[in-house]
């Protein structure tokens, strides 16, 4: 990762993760402390990126929001990877009618745009956090399943798999011991791309008012709060939006360079 873009992306992601973990220590104010003397202040010395309509410090809220956004992003990405990898690996390895059937199921989910499905599922669940988690996981696993199935199909034809089968190795062991380790590269890359997709979906949902609601703070809900006052107090929307954008960008760049690194025969985009 000598590539400066990839390096700075990794640095940003590290900084974001650290600030999520260390939020209580880094935040100058509690995220819900209201200060009626300092409403809607522009960025300054007392409040690094300003305050909102209730006098809450935006920087502190951003820090705590990082916890929510990042954990939702990573958790849903991991869950989607788990479900999707299992589904795709079994489908690709077994093949035949099972593969056909499983992929038809995937196609039905694919018939609708993803955000549409996410909104529909989230609507069913009253609890914000659980709703977003379930909605994002249940929709994004299909992308993972397709990718992993492709990989397994490719690896299934390898000589060592054939040899293992000839030696009488059980299919489960083959999947775990031979196919999975060799699919690690694409797996890691897929995971690296799933996280920004999840962050994007969550912040979009929260922005239109269907995801995380105030006073809980995620980057998206902070952007939503800032949007109402955008004309006169742009700082309220600029900083959350910038954070979302830079984080998603960083993960995408990291994923790109990981893909180029881990799979040399691939053409760089």
């Amino acid at each position, binding site marked *: 990762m000598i590539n400066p873009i990839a390096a700075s992306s990794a640095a940003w992601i590290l900084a974001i993760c650290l600030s999520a973990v260390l939020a209580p220590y880094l935040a100058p104010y509690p995220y819900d402390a209201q200060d009626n003397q300092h409403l809607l202040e522009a960025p300054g010395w007392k409040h690094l990126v300003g305050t909102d309509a209730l006098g809450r410090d935006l920087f502190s809220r951003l820090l705590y929001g990082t916890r929510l956004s990042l954990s939702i992003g990573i958790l849903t990405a991991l869950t989607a990877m788990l479900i999707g990898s299992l589904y795709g690996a079994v489908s690709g390895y077994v093949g035949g009618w099972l593969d056909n059937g499983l992929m038809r199921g995937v196609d*039905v989910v694919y018939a609708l745009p993803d*955000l*549409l499905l996410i909104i529909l599922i989230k609507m069913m669940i*009253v609890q914000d956090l659980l709703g977003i988690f379930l909605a994002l996981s249940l929709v994004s696993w299909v992308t993972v399943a397709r990718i992993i199935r492709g990989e397994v199909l490719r690896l299934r034809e390898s000589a060592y798999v054939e040899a293992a089968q000839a030696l009488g190795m059980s299919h489960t062991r083959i999947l775990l011991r031979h196919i999975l380790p060799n699919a690690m590269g694409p797996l890691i890359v897929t995971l690296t791309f799933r996280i920004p997709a999840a962050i994007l979906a969550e912040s979009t949902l929260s922005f239109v008012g269907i995801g995380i609601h105030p006073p809980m703070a995620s980057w998206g809900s902070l952007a939503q709060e800032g949007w109402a006052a955008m004309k006169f107090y742009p700082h309220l929307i600029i900083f959350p*939006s910038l954070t979302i954008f830079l984080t998603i960008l960083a993960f995408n760049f990291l994923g790109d360079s990981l893909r180029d690194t881990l799979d040399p025969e691939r053409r760089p985009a």
Partner: protein
Amino acid sequence: MLRFIIRRVLWGVPVLLIVSSITFGILHVVPGGPFDQEKKLPPEIQANVEAKYHLDQPVWRQYVLYLQGLLRGDLGPSYKYLGRSVSDIIRDTFLVSTQLGLVAIMIAMILGITAGIFAASHPGSGWDRFLMFLSTTGIAIPNFVLSTALILLFSNLLHLFPPALWEGPRYLVLPAFSLALLPAAYIARLMRSSILEVIKKEYIQAAQARGLSRFHVMLKHVLKNSMTPVISYLGPLAATLVTGSFVVEFIFSIPGMGKFFITAVTNRDYPLIMGVTLVYAVLIILANLMVDILYAVMDPRVRLE
């Protein structure tokens, strides 16, 4: 060719059935009916209202009634906008969204294809790397971030374009650009990698060996064969535009299907939600069908299947 089309259309019907069943199922599991408002209605009126909207029937019966209505083209009444049917609302808003979407597609194709061609003509150069960096940024930037940035810059600061509403051609510009940037970035990448692949093919070398001018080769041979991934992208592009329209129409207060969908979800207006979902499903299926047909038209090898 006709058999191909008929087969693909027939495939769409069961998918639509499944989609409508799933949306129906989802909406009837949702807690909180459309009439659980703050002011509690007196029980007789509540019962009347429920009878009128068939909410007192068992779920399977409601489903059958709904399907029957679908066959008549009736998507049911809106729960929120009393007196208006879902079909009416969709008809009004569909035009708006389509206008916006078509303009966005045009912008995306023009920008993306030219950028892709330019990048591919100077591979590895500073321009190429810059354009590809821009395209990665374009893919990563969330819709609402781009829209608000455009509004802040071009509306609040420069006062060039209106920040919201839908009252004339100038109102198109910012929303269409917001919708078009991500597809443009994708198309630029697709175009670039496709051209770089096609250029290596033997028939291009053969054309150049025959003495055809570089321009001629580029236009008639390279471009035609490079377009295929872009054409395939038109299917996912329709889906991208649909989801993009949710955010963009919401931010710019454009009276399109996307904005009504969002408000319907917030208001739990079941028939409107289901109607819009079905319309979107039909749209996506049609878009994919068109892509397949275009593919078959452009690449004779596909027709032989």
